[in-house]
Structure formats: structure tokens, C-alpha cells
């Protein structure tokens, strides 16, 4: 089965100059899997994930053990938010993303997501225009309903 038929087309998209604070707010929306950064022609420039944003707010050097020494990390979060507030989407986004074509099969998406632990993959048409995305849940729903024949409501 092709990803084009099972992809999600309700995407969160922004321009490359979108402010860091806007990205945070958009990503906090429970319906947003990841934010797609596109140009005016809707060509995909990069992806902003929750991990991209958290890595700007949680100090890179801080591991789980060292973090236990802190009574509260709020002042560190606040400091790193202040330092990151001048950033825009083009400085935060991941540009070495993997994309799928509309005719690629779902098992390919499943294999990539399993191997690389991505949340979701963008689906582009032949011109590189963003048409949708497919995530872990989409693939699981497809297998459960269409392959296993179970009722998912």
C-alpha cells in the first residue's frame, strides 16, 4: 500500500524566519507531530521536532546524573530560553531529513521509522512540494486495521 493514501495532510507549517517562541507554542499543540519549515512554494526546507526545541532549552552538557544535583532546573530553562529567543526556524530546524514519495510503500516508511526512531516522515511530490506526512501511529493504525483486520473504532 502506498503512503500517499494513508498519510496525514493536516500539517503544521511555518516559514524559515518564524520566531523560536512561535515554534514552541505551535509544537505544544497536541495535534502537532513536528513542524515543517517550507518556502513560499511549499517546498520543504527542514523539520523542527520536539527534540530540536528541547535541546535548546536543556543544556547540552547536562546528563541525567548531573541534573540530580539541581534542586530545580527552572532558572536554567529560563536562561536557555532567553539565549534561544532570538533564534528562528531556519537556525533550529533539522535539514538532513529523510522524505518519502507519494508512491513509496508503507513498509518502507515503517522500516525507516523503526531504524532511525523518527516521529514521522514528510511525504513530497516529484517537485519536492510537501504533501503530507506519515507517522508511527499512522503505520500502526494501517497494520492493525488493514492487515490484522482488527476494529480500531
Amino acid at each position, binding site marked *: 500500500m502506498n503512503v500517499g493514501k494513508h498519510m496525514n495532510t493536516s500539517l503544521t507549517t511555518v516559514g524559515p524566519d518564524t520566531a523560536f517562541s512561535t515554534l514552541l507554542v505551535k509544537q505544544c499543540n497536541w495535534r502537532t507531530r513536528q513542524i515543517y519549515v517550507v518556502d513560499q512554494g511549499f517546498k520543504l526546507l527542514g523539520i523542527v521536532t520536539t527534540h530540536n526545541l528541547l535541546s535548546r532549552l536543556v543544556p547540552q*552538557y547536562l546528563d541525567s546524573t548531573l541534573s540530580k544535583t*539541581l534542586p530545580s532546573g527552572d*532558572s*536554567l530553562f529560563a536562561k536557555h530560553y532567553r*539565549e534561544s529567543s532570538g533564534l528562528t526556524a531556519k537556525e533550529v530546524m533539522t535539514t538532513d531529513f529523510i522524505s518519502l514519495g507519494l508512491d513509496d510503500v508503507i513498509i518502507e516508511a515503517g522500516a525507516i521509522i523503526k531504524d532511525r526512531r523518527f516521529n514521522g516522515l514528510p511525504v513530497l511530490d516529484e517537485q519536492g512540494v510537501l504533501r503530507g506526512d506519515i507517522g508511527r501511529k499512522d503505520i500502526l493504525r494501517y497494520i492493525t486495521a488493514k492487515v490484522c483486520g482488527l476494529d480500531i473504532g
Partner: protein
Amino acid sequence: MFWTATIIFAVCYAVIVSEKIHKTKVAIFGAALTLVAKVLTQHDALHDIDFGVDWNVIFLLISMMVIVNILAKTGIFQYVAVRAAKLGKGEPFTIMVIFAALTAVGSAFLDNVTTVLLLAPVTLLIADQLDIDPIPYLVTEALASNIGGTATLIGDPPNIMIASKANLVFMDFIIHLAPVVLIIMLVWLAIWKLIFAKRLHVREELKAQIMAMDERELIQDPALLKRAGVILTLTILGFVLHGFLHYEPATVALMGAAALLLVSGQDPHHVLSEVEWPTIFFFIGLFIIIGGVVKVGLIEILSQKMIAVTNPTPQSTMVLSMVMIWFSGVASAIVDNIPFVATMNPLLVDLADKVFGPHSGSESALQHAAMMPVWWSLALGACLGGNGSAIGASANVIVVGLSEKAGHRITFMRFVKYGAPVMVLTLAISMAYVYVRYFWLKI
């Protein structure tokens, strides 16, 4: 055969310095060429004491890496660092001095790179909490690790190589190099106070954030810490006594590593996988390449030229010692000090034989009273010269990388701005020390 060995040596050296290809690949390839071209036989490379791999160095390095890897898992370094920052009551300059001292002591007994790797995250956190620039702290730690590593036989790879070649023991380094390292630390930190003490000021509420940190959380495995502490203490005692007990330093380190591996409960597969095998194979390759140029006589020619220029005699090696400090220092700031010392070692052995010795490699020649200042000068120059640039020592490269990853880029020139004056200062102090101790007071 002379030109084959010389070309292999020169090309490998040039490629290692250029950093175009990973140095381990170059060293292994150069070693393979040395064997294929029959400059050395495989027997020479693996067993000959003059031309082959120095297994004492190799096993000392591997064993120390195992000890450090297990010790690092206890969290003791980070615990001590946070505790020290709290003892400094959150005062930025006091913390800088304490961290410099901690790094120097840590690097004297452990690997420099591991020491800075363990302290850097704590440093970044404390700088973050105090809202100050972490770069002066990180660079200070890199410089301190190179200075502290100079003090002992196991502190820095050049010292391990020199000790093995000249048959020096742990206490020789403590007696001859630790005093000058202590002087250097005191002078350097006094100058650092003039530069940084007034510049570093933070608000009281930020200092309170340091005091609120709970360092006890950093001890991840108290039982392992106790066992590792006992074995590390015994290993250091073994180093102190190895000359008296007639054991090679590698034997002491191997016993320490084996005992720690046995009692730690750690998976040997995991611990051994963390040994820096590329560094180990870099050493092995380098020893074989340099063994080739020793065998064909290139090193002997260079040694004759050095004798002609510096004119060492059984009565005095003053010029040679002074030249050695500055030549080694400047060279080590530009190129990796490991291949540099690997080349200088056989050169000095040849020189010692010609000037002092009745037979090749005899201990009486290598440890002739007039030869000792030359070995110490080589160690001082090679270790302290690493401070001169961002690529002069592995600890510098690591600190620059960690800092950049944390969002604080240390440019090459910014490192040089701190490091080069420190290198000049420390080499000048070393020169004065060697002159006063060995050529004036003669003690």
C-alpha cells in the same frame, strides 16, 4: 633501505601533522610499509628492544585506561568538583583556582583527556548557574591538565615514553618534575588572579544556586567507589615503590587494572571497548616506523648533528638542555607531542651512547648525571609545549570540542591568546629551574 625508511618516516610525519588523514590510519599504514619494504622484520618490530614496539608503554597505557574508565563510573570526580565549588562559596575566581588545582592533580595520576572530560560538564553547569562565560574556565582546565600531567611518570604519554626509554622510575619524576610543576602552578595562578579576579563577579543569589546543589547525588555506586578507591591507592603505592620492588610501571598498572576489573563487577567487554584503541594502535604504528629510521641510521645522523650544534660533554649538557626545553616546547605546540617524543627518544639514546656510554643503550649512559637534565628538559618541553595552541594537546582539542558543542565556540586564536603566554611562561620557569637545579646548585 636508508631512503625507503626515511621517506616512509617523513611522509607519515607530514600527513600526521597535516591532519588530512586520521593519525592512526597513517601510523598503521606506515608500519605496514616498513615491514613490507623489509626495513624491519616482523621479529624486529615485535621483539627488538631498540627497533620494536615498546610494550611497556603500550600496556601501561591500556591498563591506565581501564583503571580510569572504571573509576569514572563512580562519579567521584564530579562529586569533588561540585563539593569544591561549594567550598569556594560560589566565588567565581576561587572556583577557577580550585578547578585548576583539581584538574592538575587529577591529570598527574590519570589521563588528561579523561580528567577534562569529567570536569567539563560540571564546569559548564556551574558557569551556567553563575551566568558567566565558561570559556576561561574550560581553557584554564585544559592548561592545568597539561601542567599537572607533567608532574608524574603516568601523567602524560611523553613521560611514559621517556621513562620507558631511559629506565626512569615513578619517584624520579616526582623528585625532579613535581617541584617545578608546583612552582609553575603557583606562578601561573598568581598571574591568573591579576587577570581574572576583578573581572569575575556575580550576584549573591547566583552564588546561592551553587550552594543549593546536592553533590551526593553524583556518587552513583558507593560500593564500587570504595573498592576502586582502595585499588587506586594500592596502584599508586605500587608506582611509588616499583623501582624498589624491581617491577616495570606497566606491571603495576596491569595488576591494578586486573584487580579493579575483577572486583568492580563491570562487564569486561564494555570496559575494554572503552579503551582508546585508536591511540594504542597509533603508538604501535609509530614505534615501528621510528624503529625503521633508527635501524637504517637516520636517527644516528640527526644525533650527530645535534651533538655538533649543542656540544654536550660528560661535564655539561647545559646548552643541549636549554635548547631541548624550547625546541620541544615549540614543536609540541605545533605538532602532536607523541610522535615528537617517539622520535627524540632514540635520538637521545644515540646521543647518550656517543657522549657518555661505553656500549649501546647502557643504563650508565642513559642515566649519566649529565644526561638527566636532558631527559627532564624533553619531558618539560613536550608536556608544557602542548599549551601553546588549541591543537597542541589532546586535552585542548577535547575542551574546544566540548565547549563548541555546548554553544560556546573557542576560536583557535582565543585559545592561543590564553595558551601561548602560559606556554612561554611555563617554559621560561622550566628553563630557570633546570639551569638553577642541575647546572648551578647541581642537586
